[in-house]
């Protein structure tokens, strides 16, 4: 009997080349499907393949290259392959984290795009049993003068805040950048970090035949069913209104889902659990079965729906938010269900595990899909796309770049630039203090978040310098990792692992693919050299408009550990008369610097080279001093170089500085604004200087005392003083003014 219904269903809709194309499948990919199942797919099956084999779920263009990343270390409990990465932080605790993008949805509807991005990444973390303790984000917008930019900034920031604030997790860090190459394709990357007991982590592989599969959370609607449905007449019922593909986030439901899931996990009823993210029910069910070497049968009439008349196709592809799927221990069903009823959430048994290794979808008894479950994932296309390496740009000679402004004015201009201005306007819309564990708020090098009542704390950061990656993907990839490593080191943390969010253009263009490959090699090399493995991540390709790709933007989210949160460093100057020490080699590298872009109006040259051994040696010399409590004022040097770092230290502490001994042998503006890597600025009272210098000498790290703290102005050599107030006005002023629409940008 079943075979009859199957037959009628398979033959029913004409799977035309057009329909195949609308599902984002290439002709040869469709051939692959036919070969795999030995017949034409039903419409529901076509939908399932399109979901499983798209770039987002199958990583078909990137998989090959991701394999090269270092993912192991003694402290890694779970590397890539699960919902999030897991590392051991000692005392029976684990840190679980991941970053994910929501670029395209946020461009269409910035508020909802951002909210659902945050919601998705939080679910990835708590589906593994962790309570989220912090969020970060990395945002890239188009040029400030582009007509859509202000609207996008305002919506995205409100959306990230709207979700995280209500959910109740502090958003403690991130980045915001502007560049015209994001005019038509902004980036919204969100990272979530949670804590669990290391022996209570939940995974997605199903076990046991005949175990119930339970649907948890909010109801299913027609949200986010991909473009193909909208474009094809078959699904567009008589209604006039185009079905919006925009998903709406419901942080309230997510908060309930978090509490219910954590409570459920304590009942011992969860055999496996998986959030429904991209391609919802399809992806989560297939993953649970395939990972556990089991088949899955779903009976869709039991799926809680929010709309009438939803078809199997729609239910399998819906991306409604705030939902989970779990394999339940049948003996504990009542307890499990009671938890979800208590939190007023849906709990429905919608299927069971089987020993057939088939993925079978039934709707009111009719078989809508019957596919080999392992092959859905394992046999997804894998591409070795042709790529073209970026031709490295020539080194730029700092002496040949005209210096048109005084260094004082250049500094003020940089502090009031879109890239380097204070992002307070953004992070004041994020509740960064909730939970009462935020030791270092936004505005420092890395955020510091205490774990429970301490003494442990995590150091968290997200970094990447896209203009470096554009000029030299390999060096840029390395730099993104070392900057994250340096930021964690600068607060006294021991860098442990990263998550990455690889945002690139169209992989079918050899140039963009070359950027991807180059950056990945750089990331891999840096992770290897720094013992800083990748434990989770996400790839976002096809970020282009009208044929032009975004700047290659591999965002790195770094996690480090502080054994005792009271022993950390911040960038604020803390007292008068302290000696300011510049640590590392200053060569005056101006190529691809912010100074070059903002002051000289050029974007060229090679990016600063990254010496991984030097980077490691330098950081490893500084960290123990902070951990011993001997060093409390440290700032790492990055965008804008030494001058900007000093200004930030002055502003943060409200204490001035007199600089009188810049590195010799290079032009002053290059010494002040060059972006050489592996550098830090520290400040110590005279009595502690010896200890610092001895430690640096012992490690073979170059250093020089460049000035003294004190007064209420920053005094650069040969320049008029800049008062703390003037620095702050410039630095704090730009973004609020821009967002009020009253600027001239």
């Amino acid at each position: 009997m079943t075979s009859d219904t199957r037959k009628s269903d398979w033959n029913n809709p004409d799977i035309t080349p057009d329909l195949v194309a609308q599902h984002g499948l290439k002709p040869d990919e469709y051939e692959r499907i036919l070969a795999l199942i030995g017949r034409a797919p039903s419409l529901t099956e076509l939908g399932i393949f399109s979901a499983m084999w798209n770039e987002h779920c199958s990583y078909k263009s990137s998989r090959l290259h991701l394999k090269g990343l270092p993912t192991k270390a003694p402290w890694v409990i779970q590397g890539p392959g699960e919902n999030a990465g897991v590392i051991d932080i000692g005392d029976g605790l684990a840190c679980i984290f991941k970053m994910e993008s929501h670029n395209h949805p946020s461009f269409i509807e910035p508020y909802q795009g951002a909210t659902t991005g945050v919601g998705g990444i939080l679910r990835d973390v708590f589906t593994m049993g962790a309570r989220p303790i912090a969020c970060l984000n990395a945002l890239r917008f188009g040029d400030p003068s582009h007509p859509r930019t202000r609207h996008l900034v305002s919506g995205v920031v409100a959306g990230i805040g709207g979700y995280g604030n209500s959910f109740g997790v502090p958003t403690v860090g991130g980045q915001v950048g502007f560049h015209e190459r994001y005019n038509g394709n902004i980036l919204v990357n969100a990272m979530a970090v949670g804590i669990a007991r290391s022996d209570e982590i939940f995974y997605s592989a199903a076990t046991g035949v005949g175990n119930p599969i339970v649907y948890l959370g909010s109801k299913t609607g027609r949200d986010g069913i991909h473009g193909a449905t909208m474009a094809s007449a078959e699904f567009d019922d008589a209604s006039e209104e185009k079905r919006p593909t925009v998903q709406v986030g419901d942080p309230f439901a997510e908060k309930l889902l978090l509490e219910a899931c954590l409570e459920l996990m304590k009942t011992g009823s969860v055999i496996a659990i998986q959030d429904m993210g991209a391609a919802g029910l399809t992806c989560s069910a297939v993953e649970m079965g395939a990972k556990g070497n089991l088949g899955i049968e779903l009976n869709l009439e039991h799926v809680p729906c929010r709309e009438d008349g939803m078809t199997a196709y729609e239910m399998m592809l819906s991306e409604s938010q705030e939902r989970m799927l779990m394999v339940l221990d049948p003996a504990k069903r009542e307890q499990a269900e009671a938890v979800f009823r208590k939190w007023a959430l849906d709990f429905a048994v919608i299927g069971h595990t089987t020993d057939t290794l088939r993925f079978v979808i039934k709707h009111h008894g009719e078989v809508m899909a019957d596919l080999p479950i392992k092959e859905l994932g394992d046999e997804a296309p894998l591409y070795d796309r042709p790529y073209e390496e970026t031709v490295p740009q020539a080194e730029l000679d700092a002496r040949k770049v005209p210096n048109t402004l005084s260094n004082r004015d250049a500094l003020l201009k940089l502090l009031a630039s879109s890239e380097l201005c204070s992002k307070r306007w953004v992070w004041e819309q994020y509740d960064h203090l909730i939970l009462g564990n935020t030791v270092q708020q936004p505005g420092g090098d890395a955020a510091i978040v205490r774990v429970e009542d301490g003494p442990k704390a995590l150091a968290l950061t997200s970094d990447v310098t896209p203009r470096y990656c554009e000029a030299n993907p390999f060096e840029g990839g390395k730099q993104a990792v070392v900057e994250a490593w340096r930021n964690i080191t600068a607060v006294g943390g021991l860098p442990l692992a990263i998550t990455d969010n690889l945002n690139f253009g169209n992989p079918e263009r050899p140039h963009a693919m070359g950027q991807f490959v180059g950056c990945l090699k750089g990331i891999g090399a840096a992770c290897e050299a720094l013992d800083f493995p990748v434990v989770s991540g996400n790839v976002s390709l096809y970020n282009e408009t009208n044929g032009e790709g975004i700047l290659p933007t591999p965002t790195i989210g770094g996690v480090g550990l502080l054994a005792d949160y009271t022993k950390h460093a911040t960038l604020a100057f803390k007292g008068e008369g302290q000696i300011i020490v510049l640590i590392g080699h200053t060569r005056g590298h101006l190529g691809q610097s912010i100074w070059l872009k903002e002051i000289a109006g050029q974007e060229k040259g090679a990016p600063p080279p990254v010496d991984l051994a030097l980077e490691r040696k330098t950081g490893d010399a500084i960290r123990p001093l902070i951990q011993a409590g001997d060093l409390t004022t440290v700032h790492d040097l990055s965008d804008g170089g030494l001058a900007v770092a000093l200004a930030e230290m002055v502003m943060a502490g409200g204490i001035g500085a007199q600089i009188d001994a810049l590195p010799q042998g290079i032009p002053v503006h290059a010494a002040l604004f060059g972006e050489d890597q592996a550098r830090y600025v520290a400040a110590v009272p005279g009595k502690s200087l010896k200890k610092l210098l001895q430690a640096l000498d012992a490690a073979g790290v170059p250093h020089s005392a460049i000035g003294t703290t004190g007064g209420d102005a920053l005094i650069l050599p040969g320049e008029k003083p800049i008062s703390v107030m003037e620095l702050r006005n410039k630095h704090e002023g730009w973004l609020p003014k821009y967002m009020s629409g009253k600027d001239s940008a």
Partner: protein
Amino acid sequence: MKTAVITFPGSNRQQDVMRALQQATGTAPAAVWHGDHELPAGTDLVVLPGGFSYGDYLRCGAIAGHAEIMTAVRAHAARGGYVLGICNGFQILVESGLLPGILMRNAGLRFICKMQHLQVATQNSDFTSLYKKGQVIKVCIAHGEGNYMADEHTITALEEQDRVAFRYCHADGTRTLGANPNGSINDIAGILSENRRVLGMMPHPENLIEDIMGGTDGRGLFASLAKAA
């Protein structure tokens, strides 16, 4: 002092306030579920914590104002028991009629989280007795709808009866332009009931109880309460 903290669906700062209560009283507060009908016997202080009860989807605090447990909270207040509503808790108190007025969208229309100075406007309450009148304290705020408003009559009564507990101000205690983060009338950050036993306030004293988190000025409030009963 026996304390109880209520969890509504969407509450999210209950752990923060529990930590502060534990620190001040030396005992763990009781956690009470919104669907419960009674407060634990002998409860002296009920706290409605911060968060987004029911997503704050209708008006902030409106749906929570009708929760089962609120009947018990009203009875507790009527008996002269202490009630503290922080942020969303303050919104619930005004929505359920335990305090007058209403909290509107912030004048700037954005959610705002930052450190904020407050002037202690009265020492005459068991919530503020360990502060000095006029003292400036640093706590934090984190809200999108904290713009306190009430009719003229109510405002006059609040002022004449010395029922404004806290006002927003600058670090030096002045209340000039820019001190008030949300546009509330008379820079009101918190108010007391007529019997001075119910306090609603937008700022979060519970997040400023450790030096390492930015200061300990929030402790005074919990210590005042601990001393009262």
